[in-house]
């Protein structure tokens, strides 16, 4: 892992959506979906973004793929600043970053055969002969555990898990350096999830891509990723190796989130650190620390100043005033 050459470098991404009072009026307020997000993904790394509704993780995923434009900030893919590229220039770069979507049903065109679906990225970029397309498709299908006989079938002939495999094959078509997966297994049954998770792990080894995994499911991200960022209301509150899911959470939100995941072991009865209240509206976010309204450890400074991400250990950053030398380590554990 070379920290000098991240494959993806996101700096200070801000995204505000206007809330208008009608079609013709000026925005009366703004939905602050992302309010200054920065992180890097290194070559070969699997990076996870976790958070609950409204945290901005899906919006961030779309911005990285330029399916949505940021209000401000920079995104560098392989060192190239992509926010200022025009459509033609961006199209060239899209060879190198592909997406796997959440819903295997709606992410495949029902009127295209599997062969067309998985080779569409290739056909978008160059003219390829029919024979070559078919053998490319067969190769991809076999890599995801499907068969040559599936080439001419339509998506409806497949189960959810198989459709997700087709989506994965399509994402791998051009051997991208970065794959962005938004809830890649959430729509699948438990036994199928394991198949797809194993498949993604195997493919990562053989194709050697870096990945950004966006999910609300902490155990999936724990399994798939080496490093994770926890998001809340448009900002990253903690970023660390995925071991953080078992110990050493330094942000109260991360600790509460981890404690809330039900443990599949009846001998380990857990007491979730239940948070008070609900996630505030992104139209009217709290002053100071965005989490202070629900934080059991909130003190005066939290209401006034917003903490920034500070490195507290190698590879571990937290945005919380508790971590500024107040010696409160023992409270959260």
């Amino acid at each position, binding site marked *: 892992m070379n920290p000098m050459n991240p494959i993806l470098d996101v700096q200070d991404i801000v995204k505000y959506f206007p809330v208008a009072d009608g079609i013709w009026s000026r925005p009366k307020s703004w939905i602050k979906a992302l309010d200054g997000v920065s992180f890097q993904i290194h070559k070969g790394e699997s990076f996870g973004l976790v958070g609950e509704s409204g945290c901005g993780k899906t919006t961030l995923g779309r911005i990285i793929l330029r399916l949505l434009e940021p209000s401000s900030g920079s995104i560098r893919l392989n060192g190239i600043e992509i926010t200022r590229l025009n459509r033609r220039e961006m199209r060239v770069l899209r060879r190198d970053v592909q997406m796997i979507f959440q819903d295997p049903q709606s992410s495949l065109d029902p009127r295209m055969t599997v062969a067309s679906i998985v080779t569409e990225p290739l056909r978008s970029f160059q003219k390829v002969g029919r024979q070559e397309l078919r053998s490319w498709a067969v190769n991809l299908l076999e890599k995801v555990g499907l068969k040559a006989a599936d080439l001419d079938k339509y998506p409806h002939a497949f189960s959810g898990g198989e459709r997700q495999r087709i989506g994965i094959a399509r994402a791998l078509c051009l051997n991208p350096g970065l794959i962005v997966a938004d809830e890649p297994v959430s729509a699948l049954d438990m036994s199928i999830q394991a198949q797809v998770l194993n498949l993604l792990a195997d493919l990562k080894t053989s194709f050697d891509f870096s990945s950004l995994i966006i999910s609300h499911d902490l155990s999936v991200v724990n399994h798939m990723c080496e490093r994770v960022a926890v998001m809340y209301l448009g900002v990253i509150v903690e970023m660390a190796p995925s071991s953080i899911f078992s110990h050493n959470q330094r942000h109260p939100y991360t600790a509460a989130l981890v404690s809330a995941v039900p443990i599949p072991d009846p001998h380990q009865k857990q007491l979730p650190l*239940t948070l008070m209240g609900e996630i505030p509206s992104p139209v009217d976010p709290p002053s100071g620390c965005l989490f202070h309204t629900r934080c059991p450890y909130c003190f005066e400074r939290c209401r006034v100043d917003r903490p920034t991400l500070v490195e507290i250990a190698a590879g571990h950053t937290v945005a919380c005033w508790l971590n500024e030398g107040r010696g409160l380590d023992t409270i959260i554990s």
Partner: protein
Amino acid sequence: MSSTLLEIQDLTVSFHTPQGVQGAVDKVSFSLGEGETLGLVGESGCGKSVTALSILGLVDTSAGVVESGRILFRGQDLLGISPEALRRLRGNEISMVFQEPMTSLNPILPVGRQIAEPLMVHQGLSKTEAFASAAAWLERVKIPMVGKRMKEYPHQLSGGMRQRVMIAMAMICRPGLLIADEPTTALDVSTQAQILTLIEKLKADFKMSVMFITHDLGIVAQTANRVVVMYAGQIVEAASVTDIFDRPAHPYTKGLLKSIPRMGIPASGSKKRLQEIRGSLPSLDKPIYGCRFADRCPEVFEPCRVKRPHLMLVQGRQQSRCWLYANGSDKH
């Protein structure tokens, strides 16, 4: 354990569609005691929701048919009573909470009215009394600013709050049995924790039994006393929650337990592979000879594809539908 509240005997439900008859639930039998939480676990198509809907007579639509069996609630067979009697039971003695509160709540009625309604209908309370009770319940389910919320419509509430409203509606007549069908699947994990804690507290305060339908083994481990595992319309295993996790007795249960990604395991090469269950659900529109899990089973042997296994006693109160446990007394 205390007395049996609900006993399901050989319940068989199918759907009669223009394409043919599709089996959904096949000779399912289990019981639920007073004050017990039963976890009904399985994946898509296993029949857990259809089983629950059958209890309340909600599956008898134009396509769903209860072919045979008995559903005994406090000794009375719900499949034999009149529709009026069943309606009196619903929301009163047996209540149900569903996964998508937005589709279960009436979008054009204020929330307060929806909660108060069961009291006016089932217990003949006046509007004032019922509304006062509704407000008290909203407080009990920890909804802030109750007065304001009572007048709001479902779309004005968040997912977690809507689910609390559903729970308030389900609890207001103090049912003996609460059936919760994936009540937290659509919610964030922290909201889910709040709802699960709430259900536990209500269960204790009101001495209620709970049938918790879920695909999440973590929820089962944390909330259930007994577990019934379903696969392709049949019960494949039934046991106490500790037995299910400590010594699962069916290859499907074992496979599920090994295939879920877990937290708390430190990041290293060792966590890279999960143990999969190969293949996928069999199609149920053709009859299946032998065990329905045979094609995916790592322990399949000669009798499996030939003779359909029944539920066999493994030990104590643990049963498994698997020829591996053919010794010992049989139980249909």
